[in-house]
């Protein structure tokens, strides 16, 4: 039987789901999940909000890959920097790129480079204690405008509004929250380009906002009709939350396209025009958060277009002979974790078909073909388990984990030998 050696670059949900599907088909294949960080799970760890532990719990499913199904973790290895993609392809029969898209999509308007304009992806990584954002310290001021109407925009809104004592059971870092939000902004606008009924956020995300204390919500630009539409009803229900002492005000606006951020050395205001007519909207602001989606950002790996060979078939995730892509790196920044599960399974099927169909000759040795000095200092699954155990043991009261933020400390913990070893 033809059994390939498989390297998956990126250990986020798409990479893990692909590994599941490939393991199901090839119980004995060497499958290695590679991550540039010393820790696995990508977006689950660094993109899902700290207070959405139920969503993060999908990682319990991925643990089984390593604990029961013989998939290897190879962390702290950046493909394109410490090992070229060509070298990786020379060692493995199949290379699957599942590195996601973590750049914030630009607003492409004047004033975007003012210092108080922040990308939602960066902010999300910051509150999740991503090592790359250690030097990032945003200041929101009194008035913040969030541009965007997706679930990430709502995550940011909730972050700005939710007091520390409502984070029971999360893995939020309290000191980080205090630094970020002392004091929290008192006046927040959240502005989307589409009409309210077409806003991308999920209704359940709106319902969650209704639980926040001391916030008065105002919803503008709602259509007169649309009774019975779950999303519009949830928005109207938010407006009815009328706390006795509202310390903070949130206004939802719909149908406005950003035109310019105003200010000479700092953000002073943001100007919108109506998507439908000639109307204009000017909002005073001390900070602007852009939450309009994600894009490729220059990294160690070449851009996807440069990797596509003459027989590339992106619909099936095929880039070149033995080289595939899955998840956001394949399909663009669309879809939730479950949608990317389907995506990863589809690409896994394409990989299986190309091996079973004889298009790919198998026999490359995989890990054994990589030089020992390259593998020294990497983090295996046992190393991650030491980091995981340390983080859980360090959890503050009411928190489930305190992440290690510093990369060097992660490595020190991963490589510490437990007693008796």
């Amino acid at each position, binding site marked *: 039987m033809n059994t390939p050696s498989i390297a998956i670059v990126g250990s986020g949900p798409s990479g893990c*789901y692909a590994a*599941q599907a490939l393991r199901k088909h090839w119980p004995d294949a060497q499958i290695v999940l590679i991550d540039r960080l010393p820790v696995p799970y990508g977006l689950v760890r660094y993109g899902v909000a700290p207070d*959405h*532990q*139920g*969503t993060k*719990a*999908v990682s*319990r*499913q991925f643990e*089984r890959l390593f604990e029961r199904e013989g998939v290897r973790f190879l962390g702290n290895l950046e493909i394109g920097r410490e090992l070229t993609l060509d070298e990786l392809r020379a060692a493995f029969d199949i290379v699957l790129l599942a590195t996601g898209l973590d750049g914030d999509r630009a607003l492409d308007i004047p004033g975007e480079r003012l210092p108080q304009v922040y990308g939602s992806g960066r902010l999300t990584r910051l509150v999740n204690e991503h090592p790359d954002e250690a030097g990032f310290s945003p200041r929101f001021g009194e008035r913040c405008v969030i541009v965007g109407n997706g679930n990430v925009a709502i995550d940011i809104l909730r972050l700005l509004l939710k007091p520390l004592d409502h984070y029971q*059971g999360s893995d939020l870092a309290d000191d980080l929250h205090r630094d970020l939000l002392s004091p929290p902004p008192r006046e927040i606008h959240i502005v989307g380009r589409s009409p309210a009924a077409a806003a991308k956020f*999920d*209704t*359940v995300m709106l*319902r*969650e906002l209704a639980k926040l204390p001391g916030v008065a919500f105002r919803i503008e630009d709602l259509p007169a009709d649309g009774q019975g539409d*779950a999303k519009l009803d949830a928005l109207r229900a938010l407006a009815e939350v009328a706390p006795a002492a509202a310390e903070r005000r949130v206004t939802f606006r719909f149908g406005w396209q950003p035109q310019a951020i105003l200010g000479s050395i700092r953000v002073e205001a943001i100007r919108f025009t109506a998507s439908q007519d000639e109307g204009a909207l000017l909002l005073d602001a001390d900070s602007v958060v852009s939450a309009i989606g994600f894009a490729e950002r220059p990294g160690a790996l070449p851009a996807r277009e440069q990797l596509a060979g003459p027989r590339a078939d992106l619909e099936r995730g095929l880039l070149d002979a033995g080289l595939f892509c899955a998840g956001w790196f394949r399909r663009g920044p669309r879809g939730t*974790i*479950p949608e990317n*599960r389907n995506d990863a399974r589809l690409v896994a099927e394409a990989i299986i078909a190309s091996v079973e169909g004889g298009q790919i000759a198998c026999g490359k040795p995989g890990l054994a073909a990589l030089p020992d000095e390259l593998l020294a200092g990497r983090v295996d699954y046992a190393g991650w388990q030491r980091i995981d155990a340390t983080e859980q043991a360090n959890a503050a009261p009411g928190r*489930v984990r305190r992440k290690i933020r510093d990369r060097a400390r992660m490595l020190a913990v991963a490589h510490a030998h437990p007693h008796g070893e």
Partner: protein
Amino acid sequence: MKLVVLFGTETGNAELVAEDIVDAVRAETEASAHDMADFDIAGLTPDALYLIVCSTYGDGELPNSAQPFANALREQRPDLSGVRFAVFGLGDSFYATYNQGSRLLAELLGELGARQVGEHGLHDASSGELPGDVALAWAKSILSQL
């Protein structure tokens, strides 16, 4: 008696739970796991016990893979008298719609004459417990009551 585990899933958690149950009981009982999306409702018969393992998605909706199954039941309204089933739901108590998906399916099967046996099992994603562990304890208690 044969055990048929039917799962409805979005993230794959319910599928793993279904497989865990089948692995754990296979030595004693004939058992198999099927995605509800691939299961023909004409196959619901009195000679098996159906374990329904189902998550909840979005604003209290059924997960994608359970929807064709539920739609077929609603449209064809088969007479399910004599059919027995037990239900294990996966949900997240963080949301008000906690476990609504599995309750929807239990109600639907009940309306059509099938009989629910044993307690309605639940896993809470916010609890920190492994879904497979909770589901196995539940499956054992269901089987011991038969």
